[in-house]
């Protein structure tokens, strides 16, 4: 059976990581998606605020994360994937900020990933199409960024995974970087061949795909084995809510408006053998503290349901 994972954001706290990992384990998760992005938040980055977290040496960072690593191990939770801080390039920001993201944040994120013995790190593509004009030019910029960390990935045995993300215009969510499965499949193959290692893979984000009307089944089938990790979450098709799957309906019949059946069929068809990972941190905030373990438990149950459906058991 496939393993089930969930992101650590809102579950694991720095002051007591033990409690968070234990709660995850008790709910039924054996894997974690470590939310490294919460140590350099996007909300701060867009305001060009660097909090100094990645100014620390790698030794200091490893020391900082040692309690987390040990707590996860004691709880029986494996850090399967992590999320690099994003954005990793801000078009309007000073060069010094973008240099910092490229030269400090990104390589240190890779080192932290290695420290956790984590196999996958999810990275956002650069959102610069609005400025550069074409998706190809945008990908070139992303590839240029990734080229700086691909050698580290090869050396460390890590696969960097880009995910399908979105952009917006006037509160309307629009297709963003890495939303063309055919192009991404070609790019992944080309880059891995160039490096002679699986340095690049894909993270399929169900919520983002739902927002821009991507056909889950077709997208996953096109990616095939290039699909390495998942961000499973749900929304109403309008806003990026990161909620529990099967939550949203938009008709009187109350059928889910997200294509979970297509998702399961496609994972079964490609014989997906990764982790069913939920990116549902808001669930842990929207439910009161007294119900958070139960909310997590429900997510794990959904994960187990997916696992059974995918494996046909």
């Amino acid at each position: 059976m496939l393993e089930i994972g969930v992101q650590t954001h809102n579950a694991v706290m720095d002051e007591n990581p033990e409690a968070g990992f234990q709660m995850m384990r008790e709910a039924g998760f054996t894997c974690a998606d470590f939310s490294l992005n919460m140590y350099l938040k996007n909300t701060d980055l867009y305001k060009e605020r660097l909090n100094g977290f990645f100014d620390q040496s790698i030794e200091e960072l490893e020391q900082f994360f040692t309690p987390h690593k040990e707590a996860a191990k004691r709880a029986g939770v494996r850090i399967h994937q992590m999320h690099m801080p994003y954005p990793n390039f801000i078009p309007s920001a000073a060069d010094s900020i973008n240099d910092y993201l490229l030269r400090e944040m990104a390589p240190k994120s890779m080192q932290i990933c290695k420290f956790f013995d984590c196999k996958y790190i999810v990275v956002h593509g650069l959102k610069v199409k609005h400025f550069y004009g074409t998706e190809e030019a945008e990908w070139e910029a992303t590839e240029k960024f990734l080229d700086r960390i691909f050698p580290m990935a090869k050396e460390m045995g890590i696969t960097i995974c880009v995910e399908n993300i979105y952009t917006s215009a006037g509160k309307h969510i629009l297709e963003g970087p890495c939303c063309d499965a055919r192009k991404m499949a070609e790019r992944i193959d080309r880059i891995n061949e160039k490096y002679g290692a699986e340095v690049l893979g894909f993270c399929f984000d169900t919520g983002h795909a739902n927002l821009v009307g991507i056909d889950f089944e077709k997208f996953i089938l096109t990616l095939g084995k290039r699909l390495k990790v998942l961000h499973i979450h749900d929304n109403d098709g309008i806003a990026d809510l990161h909620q529990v799957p099967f939550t949203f309906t938009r008709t009187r019949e109350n059928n889910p408006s997200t294509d979970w059946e297509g998702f399961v069929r496609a994972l079964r068809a490609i014989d997906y053998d990764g982790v069913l990972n939920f990116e549902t941190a808001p669930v842990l905030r929207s439910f009161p503290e007294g119900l958070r373990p139960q909310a997590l438990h429900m997510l794990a149950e959904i994960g187990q349901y997916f696992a059974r459906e995918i494996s046909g058991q």
Partner: protein
Amino acid sequence: MEIICNPAGVVDEKRPGQGLGDITAAGFDQVLLSTEFCCDEKKFKSMSQERRIAEAEHLIYVPDHPEQLPEAMKPFLEMLRQKKMRCDYALASHLPRDRKNFELNKTIIPIVEGAVRLAVQNGCKGIIVRPLYAGVDVEEEWEVNKPYLLRLGEVAREELQALEQKHFQILIENQCKYQEGHLVRGILSDPADVREWMTELQSAFASSVNATGAGEQSDDEVQIEYKLCMNVGSLSVYGQDIYEYTMAVADYIGAVIVHDGSNAEEVSMVPFTSVSSTGQLTQWIEIIRGLRSISYDGPLILDMEHAAKYCPPLLRPDLMKFAKRTMDYLVWQIHMADAMKKYDHIVLFGAGNMCRNYLTNYGKEYPPLFTCDNNPNRWGEDFYGLRIESPEKLRDLPENTGIFICNVYYREIQKQLEEMGITEGVEFFNDEYLQSLNMERLRGL
């Protein structure tokens, strides 16, 4: 570029004269020959109720009597002739998106075939049709639609032969898909599918013509062409990147339908009118950039069904005029360089971002002699290789020089020029929908 108005929402089945009059008065000279006039998707929603209404109002209920489609369309066609309006393109009726019953396709197919015949008989160049989607699984889309679309081509060919016409287009519209209330990517939303479908249909149609002994399609034979009708609203509702789509399907586009709308349901509004507190809801920059990049010059069809339908009738003529003005503006944006081509020389008025964007995008092909600015402190300054002069210099220009106003205070500057006695050769330039605008602005920060 032909501007065409879809009469949906404007023209009423019982009294088409007023709506067509509003369209004509607004300056449109073309409407779609739309069989939705007598058979819109509402007719398929509560069929028994619609049947009763039709009976009570002595109208033909077309889903039950597809053979009477020409009769049901008569009032519309007669009024078109009275108003002397052209209808170079037709639009076939379609089912509502949420229908899951495959059997319903049997009802729509004869209506669409009738619409194709009607289109050819009325001299249309092509007809916009939707693929079949009711109850069609993703993996069956091609298998179900291939024979259907080939049959439509055959129907058109038969009619063309009878009328001794030579050429007709089957324009297949890209679809969004109804997924339990959520609109997602549907048939032909993937550019690769567009390329495959159009190529395969064209080739299969040619083969079928050969197989029936009708001979290969050649210049002196009837030509049936399969093209894409790109509906930007269907792409926009779920947020597909329209620029990338346009570029990827450029060779296959036969018509373009534009409308504004919402991000939650299919609504047809006048372009640029759907906004939130933070901006436009439709990516007009991507649409305009795309159509400009491929030098699109085919039919541009306005669908403003819901805006017109829910506009107070007394205000509708004004709405239609605004809609026509909007379509003219879109054409102007898409073909902005046409204005530059008219002149032997060009000068600019304005020495800011817009002037810089002119230079970036058009400066090499249409180099200006100079630019001017009202600020005397800047006269003589070099601005990205262009000398800034006093507006007085505009009094002494070579023959056939266009003055392009590169400043958003268009009307004030135009008035200033008029006061100087300059009324000829004054043009507007606009950089809102240019490729490099945003990066240029960033560099300027």
